[in-house]
């Protein structure tokens, strides 16, 4: 009758990507292609010290000897790495001292994204470091944070301001030859965010970064380094969007987190890169390496991610539980629609005693998409009395999509406990009828049910993000009937 599932599905999946606008800002770009010259160009543009150039060149040489991984449940045409621009920056006129001096076009971009810096600064008390393509534009709130000794700035700035900290920790969690895309990033990373919380300091506000890919044919290779010194606490948020383009754009980022003794770092991200059109053309290829290390005893690292965008997502935010009594958490909602593909999950590597990890993964597939959870839980010999609990749920909307779970468990001691639970479900006609009968349209009902399904993860998000994430989930999926 009127609720023909196919019609609704069509209507909804034909919805336009909301963030698909393009900002016409004068850009300064490197020539296309990747070579030692490109890397020297980037390094020189950023006025980097010699050791950092060496770090890049080393990574590049390793990358040349590596091959693209093929083990993921993903399919895409080969990427031509010589056809990408590795550096694009808005042309700088002078140092920006206040928001008033930021390019009005840029401000307009932020307004469209719904993160007007002015508003954010005044109303929400969120410090924002906004990255468009390769250069961090303006970091707000830095002065307030500086009083507490907190350093929150763009990566390039950190290289100039606190080179010893960067040198000490860069590449210590994700070595430059960790994997193909990590090596690529280590060679050409352009900018990103840097965050250092000193001993015993609780960061009083949520730190937030927005990434946006703007220029055509540019890859975005940002690099984030977060260091929580002993006894510190920080909650860090990252959001991503990209304009609509026919061609695929590459995104290969690295995030490294170091938590020293008694420190806690909470990292949340809402990823809404352009997923491509409903025929599967265009969209971002998102190959990201995110890893944290609980280096000191009693430290904690928590990843929360809401993944709704990208044509391809390849991402496994992981925690190395090195210290004793450390805690690693991974909360994930991954949505795929149309022809999107996601292969995402986590690795929990238990090295210390009495370590504990929790994995909650909620996959939602619609359209013709494929959604895979891939996770590793490893209990080493020394990780006595450790525990892991994993729950991997899949929700299918429609009958042309796929959900896959690839859990790997390795235990080398007898005293640790690993639990894994998995479910697959569909939104039932009974649930939809029940909602409809209360006056709730099918679209709203799907949004409601999906948000309910993902609630365990969404409640981990900071308030500002939770609201955005809820809306995103509803927008990217409404109306898909099982």
């Amino acid at each position, binding site marked *: 009758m009127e609720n023909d599932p196919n019609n609704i599905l069509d209507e909804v999946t034909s919805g336009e990507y909301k963030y698909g606008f393009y900002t016409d800002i004068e850009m300064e770009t490197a020539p296309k292609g990747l070579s030692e010259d490109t890397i020297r160009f980037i390094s020189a543009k950023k006025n980097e010290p010699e050791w950092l150039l060496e770090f890049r060149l080393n990574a590049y040489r390793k990358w040349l000897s590596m091959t693209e991984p093929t083990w993921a449940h993903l399919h895409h045409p080969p990427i031509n790495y010589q056809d990408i621009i590795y550096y694009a920056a808005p042309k700088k006129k002078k140092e920006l001292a206040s928001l008033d001096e930021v390019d009005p076009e840029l401000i307009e971009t932020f307004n469209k994204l719904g993160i007007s810096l002015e508003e954010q600064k005044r109303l929400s008390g969120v410090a924002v470091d906004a990255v468009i393509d390769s250069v961090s534009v303006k970091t707000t709130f830095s002065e307030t944070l500086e009083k507490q000794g907190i350093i929150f700035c763009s990566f390039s700035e950190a290289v100039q301001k606190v080179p010893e900290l960067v040198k000490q920790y860069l590449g210590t969690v994700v070595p430059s030859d960790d994997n193909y895309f990590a090596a690529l990033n280590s060679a050409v990373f352009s900018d990103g965010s840097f965050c250092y919380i000193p001993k015993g300091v609780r960061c009083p506000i949520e730190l937030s970064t927005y990434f946006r890919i703007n220029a055509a044919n540019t890859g975005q290779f940002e690099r984030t380094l977060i260091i929580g010194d002993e006894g510190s606490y920080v909650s860090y948020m990252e959001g991503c969007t990209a304009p609509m383009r026919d061609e695929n754009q590459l995104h290969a980022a690295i995030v490294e987190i170091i938590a020293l003794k008694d420190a806690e770092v909470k990292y949340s991200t809402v990823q809404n890169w352009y997923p491509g059109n409903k025929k599967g053309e265009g969209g971002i290829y998102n190959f990201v390496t995110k890893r944290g290390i609980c280096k000191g005893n009693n430290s904690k690292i928590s990843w929360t991610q809401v993944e709704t965008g990208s044509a391809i997502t390849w991402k496994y935010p992981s925690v190395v539980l090195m210290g004793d009594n450390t805690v690693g958490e991974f909360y994930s909602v991954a949505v795929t629609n149309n022809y999107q593909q996601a292969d995402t999950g986590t690795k929990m590597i238990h090295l210390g005693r009495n370590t504990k990890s929790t994995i909650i993964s909620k996959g939602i597939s619609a359209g013709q998409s494929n959604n895979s959870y891939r996770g590793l839980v490893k209990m080493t010999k020394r990780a006595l009395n450790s525990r892991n609990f994993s729950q991997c749920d899949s929700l299918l909307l429609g009958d042309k999509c796929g959900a896959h779970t690839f859990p790997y468990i390795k235990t080398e001691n007898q005293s640790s406990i690993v639990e894994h639970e998995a479910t697959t479900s569909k939104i039932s006609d009974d649930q939809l009828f029940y909602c409809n009968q*209360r006056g709730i*349209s099918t679209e709203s009902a799907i949004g409601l049910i999906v948000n309910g399904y993902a609630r365990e993860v969404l409640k981990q998000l900071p308030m500002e993000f939770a609201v955005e994430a809820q809306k995103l989930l509803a927008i990217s999926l409404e109306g898909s009937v099982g």
Partner: protein
Amino acid sequence: MLSIKNLRASINGKEILRGINLEIRPGEVHAIMGPNGTGKSTLASVIAGRDIFEIEEGEIIFRGKNLLEMPVEDRASEGIFLSFQYPVEIPGVSITNFMRTAVNEQRKYHGLDPMPANEFLAKMEEKKRMLDIHAKLANRSVNEGFSGGEKKKNEIFQLAMLEPALAILDETDSGLDIDALKVVANGVNKLRRPDNAFLVITHYQRLLDYIVPDIVHVLFDGRIVRSGGKELAMELEEKGYEWIRAEA
């Protein structure tokens, strides 16, 4: 208020309703009784608009509008409420959130702005008090892990919140102990008004001791074979459905 004429409906080619005629006026409570499998729940589902049933013939006019041309959610917004025999679980969705969505979608249908949050919460409190429902119920997920009694109380709570013109109670008494039955029946009685109506579907006369009907219909083999006052329910209870079967 509700006028059903010669309604025939089938599922998978099998005819379930074979010519139903029913008139319900504002202020009335109608009961539909009958043995299992005679089409009682089908009638409720067809009025609400469940699309697994094929309408072969007939019409359902509700307050001057042709219900059969409306999607389920519009019928609900027009004032049809179905208290489900088996309410479904919606994990992770709180009753508060569920009800707020329902109330506001119905308001949107009528061209009204969403209800302000404080007004909504005050209404929730009022209805909970009226129905003697524990505060914490509202924070739980819709029907998730609820006992049979809790599910039915939750249905009546939603009924109170949405204030429909016509409430259909589909076997609301099934699976209830006598205390829960009283709570549910008391709730319904408090919600009776001159401008609304109830259609109570039940297998047993027991519920009708508490919700006293104006008119009782006996449904048998897809047709209403007999209608009468509340004494008809007593008669059925005494003689059993065999009596009807013999007559039909």
